[in-house]
């Protein structure tokens, strides 16, 4: 496999992981419905909403990876940032739903009474989780990349500069290498300066 194919494969796996992280809480709720002998339709709206949000986010994540690949100073920066983004996505997609539904149960019930379908709330929470994950991914990537340097616009926002534009030394654990201090060079002795003053006057 060529490096290009490997990159695409890994990006695809990452996008699928993002999709799964968004879908997982909906599947957990759906499992409860399935186990409880309620009619088969119940809970499908939530799964459908999560599929839509998850698919959209997978596409965004895929595009972000491709975009970052063109601009990254080091390839590892992309994957480190993506791992952090995935952790934030997985935690927030599930914990937000659990926390908000459990802590504000009567408020949600009131909304449901007013005719606001719960799927709207669910979708909103998942979109917040996706936004948090995307922000984390971009922030970590930006933090890892060498800077300051002129930024340039990308299709999905402002990205760190391209590799060929970066001319800064790489950050290192070691102390920065300083150029050796050179001793002052004495001014060259010219013929005019070497001549006696009397001679010059004449």
């Amino acid at each position, binding site marked *: 496999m060529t490096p290009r194919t490997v990159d695409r494969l890994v990006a695809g796996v990452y996008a699928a992981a993002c999709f799964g992280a968004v879908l*997982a*809480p909906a599947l*957990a*709720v759906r*499992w*409860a*419905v399935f*186990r*409880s*002998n*309620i*009619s088969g339709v*119940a*809970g499908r709206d*939530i799964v459908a909403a999560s599929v839509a949000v998850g698919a959209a986010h997978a596409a965004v994540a895929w595009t972000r990876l491709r975009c970052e690949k063109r601009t990254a100073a*080091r390839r*590892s*920066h992309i994957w*480190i*940032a993506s*791992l*952090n983004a*995935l*952790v*934030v996505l*997985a*935690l927030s997609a*599930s*914990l937000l*739903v*659990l926390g908000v*539904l*459990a802590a504000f*149960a*009567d408020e*949600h*019930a*009131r*909304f*449901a*009474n007013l005719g606001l379908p*719960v799927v709207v709330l*669910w979708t909103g929470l998942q979109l917040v989780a996706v936004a948090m994950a995307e922000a984390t991914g971009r922030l*970590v990537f930006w*933090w*890892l990349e060498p800077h300051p340097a002129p930024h340039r616009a990308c299709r999905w926002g402002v990205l760190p500069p391209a590799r060929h534009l970066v001319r800064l030394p*790489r*950050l*290192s*654990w070691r102390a920065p290498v300083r150029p050796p201090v050179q001793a002052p060079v004495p001014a060259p002795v010219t013929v005019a300066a070497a001549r006696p003053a009397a001679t010059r006057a004449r």
Partner: protein
Amino acid sequence: MNRREFLASGLGVVGTVAAGLTLGKGVWPLLAEEDLVPGEAPRARLDPQAWDTTADRVTFAALGDNGSGGRQAMAVADRMAEVYRDRPFGLVALLGDICYYGNFEDRYDDVFRRPMAPLIDAGVSFELAIGNHDADLHHSDEGLAEIEAELRLLGTPGRYYASTHGPADFFYLDSSVPGLLGDGSSDQLEWLDDTLASADNQWKVVALHHPPYSSGEHGSTPGFDEVLQPLLARHHVDVVLAGHDHHYERTHPIDGTTYVVSGGGCKTTGVAHRDFTAVAESTLEFLHVDIHGDRLTGTCIRPDGSVADRFTIRAREGR
């Protein structure tokens, strides 16, 4: 690897492990167990007072652990309303835990008024055996205030009390601590002993939250086999209805008494089969009971209308 790369990748790895443990062992199982998604209330219009309670006949329903106000609770309530159309009942015995995720005074509409609206409008009466989620297991001031609110809003006379419907006497107990166990439990036990002794109806039904016998997640309540079970056997109690564990279970008669767990009002948890188990299933459900003369017929009904269990008990059977 520079310092930033080391920090970010370390954070990513630690986060992955933490997320895996948190989600896999905590959050996803909780989402699969709880009933957090708000549901739409049943909209059935029922004929008022369609039941027929006479000196030798009464029909009632028993429902436990239904206090979420979520979709699953609404599905069970909807099925109760549907069953009322065909086999009307004038009483619902609530087996505790009628309010989760908040206090009952705030959530009264969400967990009780809306789900039960068709039955309330039809004039069905509700009698409550308080549960551990209705207050703390050990009564604190806040817990007692919560119980007071429930008793007031449901018009329940006290933490433990008796009522009579047709040929059956009902005894509702407070099974929290101190209720039947621990310091201060003797008052209720003495009251139960006296009231059971003086009850002269053909059927005796005891309702409480914590099950004396259960094969579920919480299991049989420790101490009840010493304190409660001999007393129930001595007074020839026919049926004991309980909740707490979120499943349906019926025991073989134990000293003449059949113990039923009906805690699938809005959530489900797993259940095993033990020596005393006749039927057990992890499902949402409620129990419909029809007492006619010397025959009691119980039917456990799932939200989709299917029957999980049907049993018949003859009066004074096995005594």
